């Protein structure tokens, strides 16, 4: 490649600025509150979408209209009024700051302790930077490498324009528009998200996580992600960021669909740290997410999640093990503090023969929070030799919080082997005393024990995030020493 000079960079930065300017202009034409067919049509038109896409959205809207908001989850919150939400607005322009000195010191402190580099700190805190040499050039190189391999990785709205055949073929096949209330809503009004296609036999040369993090754009309220791994391919994908997101949108209803074709493998990691509300439980994000993956023969899907943010979380990344010998995995750490509520878990639907699934869920509750694991393991009658291992451990700190497990196990085949284990415990006084004796203060000792408790899951995260996630746990639990 021709050498990437500083001039090119300058030019690129200039265009970026322009982008911002452009968005500012259209901010005034934000849609009025409320949702009806016209709004759905208008969103579709705004995105310049083809007719089939508009129809698809409308269909979803019509279904959504008939649905009722579910209330079976073990969470309490005031239901959002869906007619008081603006369903389309251009990405909000955050105030540009001139230097890190202007950033909220609390936020900076968090960055520092997460070990985020100074440049990245600036980018995350939206400080104007003159040159982010590293990030930008790396990103460009990434784009090139991906392009050479034939990997498509772009915002889904662009993909609808550029690869309509792929999007049309796969969108909504794993999470149908009629799936549930929030999935239907998302299908009707999603504004953007990511689309990723890995061609046959291609092993994605880098963690898409790395790429993603550098290119972290303004994440929308209704995100739609579609990852398609063609036969024999491999991809590792990370969404979210360990840095705290101070997003003001109250309601987030994302849909993620993964399709792993024969012999393909998808590793999907999530670090979620939306604003959890203040210490008294005021404010905070409602996170209602539908995530599901489909495994064809010999395919493997592995979900890893670290959930520390959001006031209310409602999230069940699932695997449909359709092909023979396919594998589904779910590794989760959910931390709740103060007045947070999380109802999270997974569904493993075994359809094919010799399918395997593993569920490791670690729940940590502190303060006045409620943490629930809700999972389903379903072995259908034709799923010979299916195997499942589930383990749900809960750790309680203080006696104002709660830990709950609601596992559903449905077996229709005699050759299935299912094991489910759950334990609830607290940090032992002896353990703390042992650490104290050796000069480790209580706060550090708790961090140590929590890390040990969640090690199995942390190990599954891509390397660069594992370290940060570990620190994130520490920070999330700060001040919860009982």
């Amino acid at each position: 490649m021709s050498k990437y000079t500083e001039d090119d960079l300058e030019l690129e930065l200039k265009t970026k600025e322009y982008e911002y300017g452009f968005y500012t202009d259209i901010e005034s034409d934000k849609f009025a509150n409320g949702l009806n067919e016209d709004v759905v049509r208008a969103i579709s038109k705004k995105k310049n979408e083809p007719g089939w896409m508009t129809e698809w959205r409308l269909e979803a809207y019509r279904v959504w209209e008939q649905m009722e908001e579910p209330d079976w989850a073990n969470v309490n919150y005031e239901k959002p009024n869906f007619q008081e939400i603006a369903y389309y607005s251009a990405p909000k322009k955050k105030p540009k700051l001139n230097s890190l000195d202007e950033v909220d010191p609390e936020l900076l402190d968090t960055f520092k302790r997460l070990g985020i580099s100074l440049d990245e700190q600036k980018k995350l805190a939206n400080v104007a930077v003159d040159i982010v040499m590293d990030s930008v050039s790396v990103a460009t190189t990434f784009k090139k490498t991906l392009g050479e391999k034939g990997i498509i990785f772009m915002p889904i709205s662009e993909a609808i324009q550029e690869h309509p055949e792929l999007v049309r073929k796969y969108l909504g096949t794993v999470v149908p528009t009629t799936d549930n209330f929030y999935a239907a809503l998302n299908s009707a009004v999603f504004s953007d998200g990511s689309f990723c296609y890995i061609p046959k036999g291609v092993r994605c040369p880098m963690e898409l996580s790395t790429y993603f993090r550098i290119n972290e754009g303004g994440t929308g309220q209704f995100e739609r992600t579609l990852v398609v791994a063609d036969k024999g391919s491999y991809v590792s994908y990370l969404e979210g960021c360990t840095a705290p997101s101070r997003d003001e949108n109250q309601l987030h209803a994302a849909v993620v669909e993964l399709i792993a074709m024969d012999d393909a493998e998808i590793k999907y990691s999530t670090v979620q740290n939306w604003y959890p509300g203040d210490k008294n439980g005021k404010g905070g994000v409602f996170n209602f997410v539908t995530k599901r993956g489909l495994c064809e023969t010999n395919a493997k899907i592995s979900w890893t999640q670290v959930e520390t943010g959001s006031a209310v979380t409602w999230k069940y990344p699932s695997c449909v093990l359709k092909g023979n010998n396919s594998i589904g995995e779910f590794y989760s750490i959910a931390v709740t503090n103060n007045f947070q509520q999380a109802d999270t878990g997974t569904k493993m639907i075994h359809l094919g023969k010799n399918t395997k699934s593993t569920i490791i869920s670690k729940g940590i509750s502190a303060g006045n929070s409620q943490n629930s694991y809700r999972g389903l393991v379903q072995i259908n009658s034709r799923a010979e030799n299916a195997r499942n291992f589930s383990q749900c451990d809960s750790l309680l700190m203080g006696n104002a919080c709660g830990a709950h497990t609601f596992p559903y196990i449905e077996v229709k085949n005699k050759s299935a082997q299912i094991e489910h284990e759950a334990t609830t415990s607290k940090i032992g006084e002896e353990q703390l005393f042992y650490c104290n004796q050796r000069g480790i203060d209580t706060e550090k000792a708790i961090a140590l024990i929590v890390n040990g408790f969640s090690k199995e899951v942390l190990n599954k995260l891509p390397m660069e995030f594992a370290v940060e996630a570990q620190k994130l746990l520490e920070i999330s639990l700060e001040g919860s020493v009982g």
Partner: protein
Amino acid sequence: MELKEKILSSYVAFENGIDINSDIHEIRTEALENFEKLGFPTKKLEAWKYTSLNSVFKNDYSIFPDKEVTVDLADVKKYFIHDIDTYKVVFIDGKYSSFLSETTHDAIDVCLMSAALTKSKYSPVVENYFNKIAKQDNLTSLNTAFANEGAYIHIPRNVEVEKPIQIINFTTGSEAATMVQPRNLIVVEENAHVQIIERNQSLTDNAVLSNIVTEVFAAKNSTVDIYKIQNDNINASLVDNSYIEQKTNSVVSVHTFSFGGNITRNNLNFYQRGEHMDSILKGITIIEGKQHVDHHTLVHHIEPNCESHQDYKGIFNDRSTGVFNGKVIVNKEAQKTNAYQQNNNVLISDKATINAKPQLEIFADDVKCSHGCTIGQLDDDALFYMQQRGIPKKEGKALLMFAFANTVLESVKIPEVKSRITKIIANKLGVDIGFDL
């Protein structure tokens, strides 16, 4: 729903037929209103997600079979634990059979609910305990509305009842379909000890629906052992609602053996009000054909330093369905609780289904709570080992199943009950193992 209409319209006649002035009248009326509002349970309710009673409610039940039917002792003797001396409270089609019963008022009261509800000498106990812990859910309310007959057992302080008490409900099938709603009240005072054996048995293949409510009160330092033997005919369905309240230092165990019947639903609820007590819930389920057994348990730990142990084993053949829904709630005051829940299942056939939902809801931090749930098969290697040594396959399988269920069997304290259960299991598996387990 037709059955619901029929039940509602028969209420006035029912109330007229008995003492309308009773204090219980208000409780009944309220329960009826509650039932009218709630109706029969449907699969839409989370508590009934895996069990549908629709096929059962379709029958045109005779709600108050009034034919006097007598049965010969010789015909029904086999349903009693007859090799030991026991007290017996026996009902035929919901009516007390003095001929088959053996009640007492000597130091303890083992008698009839209908007497307890009307005679003033029982009223202090009835006022304090009747319908105090039964839930206001649909089928319990239905039972309460028609609560009239059943067993009344009152064990005063410091009495150790010397022989077990059997409560047996026979249905004769004199009508094409019969519905019975026995209501039992068991009050065990401080330091008392009692063993109770319950059984429901229909004598023909006619459809039967039993909707039973049992309230058990175990005071300080008391010990109560309850054995439920469910080995009914194939058209008999059972909803067994048990509510148990325990006080400090008491130990209550309930063993449920489910082998027969069409649809069996056990709602077993423990409320621990006090400290240092132990609740034991165990069960063996071995079913086949299209049978359905649902164990729905609740242990509510309200105060500190208590324990609960649950152990349910299930073996499922043919097209049978098993449901286990176990719930443990630990209140935030209930520190130092130890709650264990174990549910192991074996599927013998490809058409059999298991739905398990072991739940924990924990609000206290200094607790040890665990649940384990497994679904698997008999070990082929072990079977092969036995076959090599001359044990036929069928017997080998039976041995493995006995071994599997043994953790439940071994805690049965009445030897005759244990051997009876062993026999029923052996019978069911079609083997003669020739030794006691």
